[in-house]
């Protein structure tokens, strides 16, 4: 599922100009991270991509379709969205009903709904909580319920707003494995995140935003070593990049294992 913004401006009713002429094309199956300081326009951009917001001017395309001509409900079958705050999203009385809501709305058979719910809860490590009330879970767990609900929709594109916030080390690792798996399946993935270490490890392309505009866009290992641009956007480089730059390397590793391979190469 291709997603595209063409010269998009977006102004909130309060007068705040959140996006000031943004053009961006995300190809089918790409994994893209949006980074930038608070208030840079990242969440606004993401909400435009699934029709929750409509551009003040310019065009947003989901596949070939202009989001202005479709309802958010129609678009939600193609572009899933996991909010930063799960409490904006959860409403059902059990985890099962929460995750089953989307698939049931798609009028899938009950067997298919159940299979999707089980699979999604396995993916986020919450199968044992299937009969619990979402609000009896901890905040990080509720966030995983919201993620499972989006996963169960099997949308070709998925947007994750700050997925790592509040997750502990095990949760972040599980999320990374999930992102890698969805990417391998060919889903289009967009994550908004401050966690540049997570970005570098799991996203091939990084878009840096500042003041409602795109400041940089390219392969993660290139964008995340451009210290001047990162500083303009108030973003600090990932730890592995700082280490590689500190060692005087030109090539940046994505992962600790790649780091070790590059280290061996540099030493021979």
């Amino acid at each position: 599922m291709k997603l595209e913004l063409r010269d998009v401006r977006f102004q909130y009713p309060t007068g705040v100009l959140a996006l000031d002429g943004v053009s961006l094309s995300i190809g089918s199956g790409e994994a893209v991270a949006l980074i930038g300081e608070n208030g840079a326009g990242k969440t606004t951009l993401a909400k435009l991509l699934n029709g929750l917001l409509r551009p003040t001017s310019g065009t947003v395309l989901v596949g070939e379709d202009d989001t202005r001509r479709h309802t958010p409900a129609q678009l939600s079958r193609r572009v899933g969205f996991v909010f930063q705050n799960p409490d904006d999203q959860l409403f059902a009385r059990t985890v099962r009903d929460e995750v089953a809501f989307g698939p049931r709305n798609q009028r899938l058979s009950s067997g298919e709904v159940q299979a999707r719910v089980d699979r999604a809860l396995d993916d986020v490590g919450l199968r044992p909580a299937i009969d619990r009330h979402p609000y009896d879970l901890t905040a990080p767990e509720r966030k995983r319920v919201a993620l499972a609900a989006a996963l169960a929709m099997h949308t070709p594109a998925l947007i994750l707003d700050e997925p790592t916030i509040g997750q502990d080390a095990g949760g972040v690792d599980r999320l990374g494995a999930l992102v890698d798996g969805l990417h391998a399946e060919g889903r289009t993935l967009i994550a908004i995140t401050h966690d540049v270490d997570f970005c570098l490890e799991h996203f091939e392309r990084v878009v840096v935003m500042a003041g409602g505009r795109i400041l940089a866009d390219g392969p993660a290992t290139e964008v995340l070593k451009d210290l001047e641009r990162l500083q303009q956007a108030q973003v600090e480089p990932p730890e592995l990049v700082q280490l590689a730059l500190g060692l005087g390397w030109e090539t940046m590793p994505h992962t600790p294992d790649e780091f070790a391979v590059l280290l061996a190469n540099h030493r021979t």
Partner: protein
Amino acid sequence: MESAVIAVSGLRFRYAGAEQDALQGLDLSIGEGELVGVAGANESGKSTLCYALTGYVPHFFSGTLVGSVSIAGHDVTRTPVSLLAADIGLVFHNPFNQISGARTTVLEEVAFGLENLGVEQALLRPRSMQALRATGLDDLADRSPYTLSGGEQQRLAIAAVMAMQPKVLVLDEPTSQLDPAGTRAIFEVLRRLARDGRTTIVLTEHKLGWLAAFVDRLIVLHTGRLVADGPPRDVLAEAVEHTWGVGATRYTRAALAARRQGQLAAGTRLPVTLEQALEVLR
């Protein structure tokens, strides 16, 4: 260590209705002006410890408490939260739970806590503005708290507690909503408060890189028990040998990968910060 400002002994706590203890016998002593980080997986007891250090456990969250908690001379388990507030501040994990809504501007929100402590009228504005400047919110002083972004609300929650100038400041994941620039600003303020102001600070945090770079002392909780306590480098290096769910910085992970590939001698001390990593991997 000079006399402990925080002294916890044999602390066990079970929330009403829970099947097991959230804290399972904790001993902890912290001196004046220490900046102590608390790491641990979700549900390891970090938030419960924050509540116990500030009296919210057992006075607000009910349950069964055994052991003693003495903070800045108060027997916390027997003193109402209202009497602790002048000396002990808590910044909640979720800023939305903290903002009172009783006042209409950011400045008034910060001054509200001071008024409740009976601070002189003439001091309300300067002390509030000082806290807003320290957290980078002075430009937003006249805005409504509810028009702020999540990150700004989190800084407001910190400013409101800082303005009260407590002797002991406890923060539960204070930077969860903040970008790196905001996170750095908060850690720098905390370090300054601990060093100059002699404020004793305890904070929980998942961002290990920041803990490693800023705190003097790191403790690890695992299933309600204190399992490690010491300088961040020692504690985080020890953590990779256990299943505490603390994680590791990329510097540590890079060194571990290098070790697996035979690029780092087995006995080498593991790095947790950039400087340490450059030293052992150069």
